[in-house]
C-alpha cells in the first residue's frame, strides 16, 4: 500500500488544482453573466422603442393594404406592388433558406453547443430542405466547423464575438447578414440560438427574422402594450414609406443583435453552470480520495504496529 499512498496524494493535489481552475472559471463566467445582463437591460429599452414604432406602423393602414404583414391582411397575399423598396416585408419565393446558427467559440460550456446544433439539424430535416438549399451563417467557431464538415454551404462565418458584444462591434456582422438577404443569397432567414431563461436553464429558439412578418412584429403582449401607450396618431415626416425604409433595416439589425446578445448571455450562463458542476465533481473526487488516502495510511500504520509488536514478541 506504500506506493499507492504516494499515488493517491498526487491525485488529490492535481484534482485540487483542477478544482481551483474550474472554480475561477466559474467566477469569471458569473461575473460576465451579470455584466451582460446589465447590458441587455439597456438594449431592451432600445428594442422596445423600435418595436413599438414598428407595431404602430404595422397597425396603420399602409401595411394593411400593402403587405402581407398584419394578421388581418392575409388575403392580400403576394400583393406587394405597393411597397417597392421595402424588400424586407415582401415574401419572396423561397429558393434558399438562410440559417444563422449562434454557437460559442470556446468549449467548456456544457451542452450549450450540442444543443443548438442538434436542434438546428432537426429543424433542417423537419423543413424538408435539401442541403443545397440551406445557407448557413455561422456565428461562433463550433457551429462553423460542424456545418462545414457536414457539407453545408457556409458562405459566411464569424468567430470571436466579444464576451460582452457591443452593437458598434457587431454592427458589421449584422449588416453583412442583411446585405446577403438583399443580394438574394437567401430568401428567408432563421436565427437559431439558445435563449437565456435563467442562469440554470436556457431553451433553444429558432426565429424567423426575415422577411419581417406579423409573426415577429405584433405578438399579443406587444399589441396590448401598444394599445395603452401608442394609440396616438402620428404625423409622419417625410412619409410612412420613407420612415419604414429607415426603421425596418434598423429593426432587423436590432433583432439579430438581440439574438446574439441573448445567445451570449446563455453561453455565459451555461459556462458558469458547467464550471460549477466541474468544481462540485472535483470536490466529490477529492473527498473520496481523501477517504481512500486515510484508509491506506491507517492500514499502513496498522501493518507497521503489527510488525513491531510481532518483532517484539519474537525477541521476548
Amino acid at each position: 500500500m506504500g506506493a499507492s499512498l504516494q499515488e493517491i496524494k498526487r491525485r488529490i493535489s492535481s484534482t485540487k488544482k483542477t478544482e481551483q481552475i474550474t472554480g475561477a472559471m466559474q467566477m469569471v463566467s458569473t461575473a460576465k453573466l451579470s455584466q451582460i445582463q446589465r447590458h441587455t437591460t439597456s438594449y431592451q429599452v432600445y428594442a422596445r422603442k423600435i418595436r413599438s414604432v414598428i407595431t404602430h406602423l404595422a397597425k396603420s393602414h399602409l401595411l394593411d393594404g400593402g403587405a402581407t404583414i398584419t394578421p388581418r391582411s392575409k388575403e392580400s397575399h403576394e400583393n406587394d406592388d405597393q411597397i417597392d423598396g421595402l424588400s424586407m416585408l415582401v415574401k419572396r419565393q423561397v429558393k434558399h433558406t438562410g440559417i444563422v446558427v449562434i454557437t460559442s467559440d470556446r468549449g467548456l460550456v456544457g451542452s450549450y453547443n450540442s444543443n443548438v446544433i442538434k436542434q438546428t439539424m432537426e429543424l433542417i430535416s423537419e423543413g424538408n430542405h435539401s442541403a443545397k438549399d440551406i445557407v448557413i451563417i455561422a456565428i461562433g467557431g463550433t457551429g462553423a466547423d460542424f456545418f462545414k464538415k457536414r457539407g453545408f454551404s457556409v458562405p459566411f462565418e464569424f468567430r470571436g464575438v466579444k464576451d460582452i458584444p457591443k452593437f458598434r462591434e457587431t454592427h458589421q456582422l449584422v449588416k453583412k447578414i442583411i446585405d446577403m438577404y438583399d443580394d438574394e443569397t437567401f430568401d428567408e432567414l432563421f436565427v437559431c440560438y439558445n435563449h437565456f431563461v435563467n442562469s440554470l436553464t436556457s431553451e433553444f429558439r429558432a426565429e424567423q427574422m426575415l422577411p419581417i412578418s406579423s409573426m415577429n412584429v405584433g405578438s399579443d403582449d406587444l399589441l396590448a402594450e401598444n394599445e395603452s401607450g401608442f394609440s396616438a396618431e402620428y404625423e409622419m415626416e417625410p412619409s410612412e414609406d420613407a420612415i419604414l425604409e429607415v426603421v425596418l433595416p434598423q429593426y432587423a439589425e436590432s433583432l439579430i443583435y438581440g439574438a446574439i446578445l441573448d445567445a451570449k448571455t446563455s453561453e455565459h450562463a451555461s459556462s458558469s453552470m458547467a464550471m460549477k458542476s466541474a468544481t462540485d465533481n472535483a470536490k466529490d473526487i477529492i473527498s473520496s480520495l481523501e477517504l481512500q488516502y486515510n484508509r491506506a495510511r491507517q492500514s499502513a500504520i496498522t501493518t507497521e504496529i503489527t510488525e513491531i509488536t510481532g518483532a517484539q514478541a519474537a525477541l521476548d
Partner: protein
Amino acid sequence: MAEQDLLTVSVVTPDGSVYEKQTRLAVFKTTVGEIGILPNHIPLIASLEIDEVRVKVQETDDKFDEIAVSGGFVEFSGNVATVVANSAEKKEDIDTTRANKARERAEKRLEIAKQSNDVDTTKRAEISLRKAVNRINISGH
C-alpha cells in the same frame, strides 16, 4: 393630456441610453429638413439625417447640448421625444482621434471603391465618411 411646459428628450442606442434631459426646445435634422419640437407638439415620427440633435439647456440663454446621431429616427408622443439610432454620442464624449481615423479609413475605402466602380461599397463608404465627418464637425464647434 395636460399642457406641460417641458418635454423630455432621450437618445437610445442598442448599447444603452446615451442622453436624457428635460428641455423647452429640441431641434432635429430630419431627412426633409430641420424641425424644432416644443412641448405639446403633436405625435410625430421622423427619420433623421446623419447630423446633430440639439437640445436647449436653459431657457434664458442660447446654449444647446449637441448630440451626434448616425441616422435613425425620432418618435415623439406624450411629451417624450425618443431618438432611436444605431449610434449616438454627446459632443463632449466624441473621441476626435477615433473619428479622424474613421474618416481616413472611410476616405481610403471610398477611393478604392470608386476606382473599381463598386456602387454598393461606394455608398457604404460614403455613409461611414459622413458619420465620421459629422462627429468631427460637432466636436469642433
